């Protein structure tokens, strides 16, 4: 077990250099950034397990939720704390790269971007899974975003969660879950996020952005929202949950 830390600017710079090096040479040695001036201990003190193996993003998010809740850490100290998320990605780097077999191209998958930069922020491999899981009203549908291994990109997170209006409405997330997630298989329906597929989640976002100009979706039930969707969604509407 090790004490949770927050990455500082100098640590982020070194981590970025390491990312460049490890992409060229997967056996490059990870620098030790667990001391000042690279990082500082998070307060209140929280112990995290560097060796903990996570089968899915859900596992990882649930583990962190438990760590944070145990010490009563506040959301505002956690969610916007990009240094904390960068450090966690540093801590679990081997696992987040599938033992360095799947090192993703963008630094922002590991180095947490500013939270106001939605598109960059939502490609981080640790923070968005936790954030989605931490919202009680989103949690029942969070498998959509958390079903896959921690080192993989999740298309729903990048498409849906990066659109702030959608994730602030649990009823809308429930509709997306109903249309595009196959509960029996524990993963999204085939081609749910594909480009050029009628009624895919890409179409849903486009149609929904038009609907929300006309309807007060916040007040509507998931069923009412589904009823508003045009015929291109019929096949997805008919799919069994």
């Amino acid at each position: 077990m090790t004490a949770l830390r927050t990455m500082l600017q100098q640590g982020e710079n070194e981590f970025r250099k390491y990312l460049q090096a490890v992409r060229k040479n997967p056996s490059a040695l990870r620098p030790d950034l667990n001391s000042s001036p690279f990082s500082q201990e998070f307060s209140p003190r929280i112990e995290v397990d560097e060796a903990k193996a996570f089968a899915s993003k859900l596992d990882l998010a649930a583990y962190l939720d438990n760590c944070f809740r145990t010490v009563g850490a506040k959301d505002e100290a956690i969610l916007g704390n990009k240094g904390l998320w960068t450090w966690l990605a540093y801590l679990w780097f081997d696992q987040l790269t599938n033992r360095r077999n799947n090192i993703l191209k963008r630094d922002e998958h590991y180095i947490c971007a500013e939270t106001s930069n939605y598109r960059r922020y939502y490609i981080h491999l640790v923070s968005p899974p936790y954030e989605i899981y931490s919202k009680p009203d989103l949690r029942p549908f969070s498998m959509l975003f958390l079903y896959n291994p921690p080192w993989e990109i999740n298309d729903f997170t990048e498409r849906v969660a990066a659109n702030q209006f959608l994730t602030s409405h649990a009823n809308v997330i429930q509709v997306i879950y109903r249309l595009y997630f196959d509960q029996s298989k524990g993963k999204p329906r085939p081609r749910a996020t594909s480009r050029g597929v009628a009624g895919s989640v890409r179409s849903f976002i486009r149609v929904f952005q038009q609907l929300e100009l006309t309807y007060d979706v916040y007040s509507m039930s998931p069923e009412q929202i589904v009823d508003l969707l045009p015929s291109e969604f019929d096949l997805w509407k008919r799919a069994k949950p």
Partner: protein
Amino acid sequence: MNFTRRNDQVVCFVLNKLDVDDLALPPDARVYVEAYHRTELKRFDFGTVGNMTPPLSTDLTDMAYRDNLKFRILVVDASDNKVLAHADRIAPDKPAERKSILEVNLEDLGNQIWQVVYEGDEGRPILCINKSIPEEIARQDPQFMVYVYPAVVREILTNMVFVEEVTSVEDPAVDWHADWLQFSRDLGITPPEVLNHAEQGFDKGKALEWIDEVVTKFSDTLGSKFQEYLQKLEGAP
């Protein structure tokens, strides 16, 4: 709207006046104000158009992200959930604090003169200029300006249309898209109706034509710099 801040964060707000007289809204339509950012949204019920009653509290301190909160005012017909009027993306910033359409940074770019990175709020473009270039050159040198700035505008619009997704030309989901579409309108160029490359009805040719028109008009605003540049060339040995 007036906003109260504590430690530079908005903690509550007051809706002083909502002037909807000209909109002929039914008096029983509901009025809501929403504060939102990313996964969070908090709705406040302000009663009806005919009887506006502010809620007892507009406390925002339970929201995790108060740095970048935005506000939306909605007037809704409660019988069918239809939005009758709305004002969106109300930012508590003072107008004087608003950012310019394009942030400029001086950076070590090796042998590149300039580069646009999309790392501002919501992926907003930032123009990086090689820090080896003296600042006054970047600000006012005719040659630099006529070579670099129109190309920057073209790069940003091309990225916005062909890499990003402009969800709506009238009301895009991303603020910086709205800013650059307004930039086009301010130059007298109306954008095509569809600029989302993933949407049916998107016309690549029309989009490229629009980008060309904006760059041409923008270059016209640098006309005096271009003339200065030509004079320099003519005067050169």
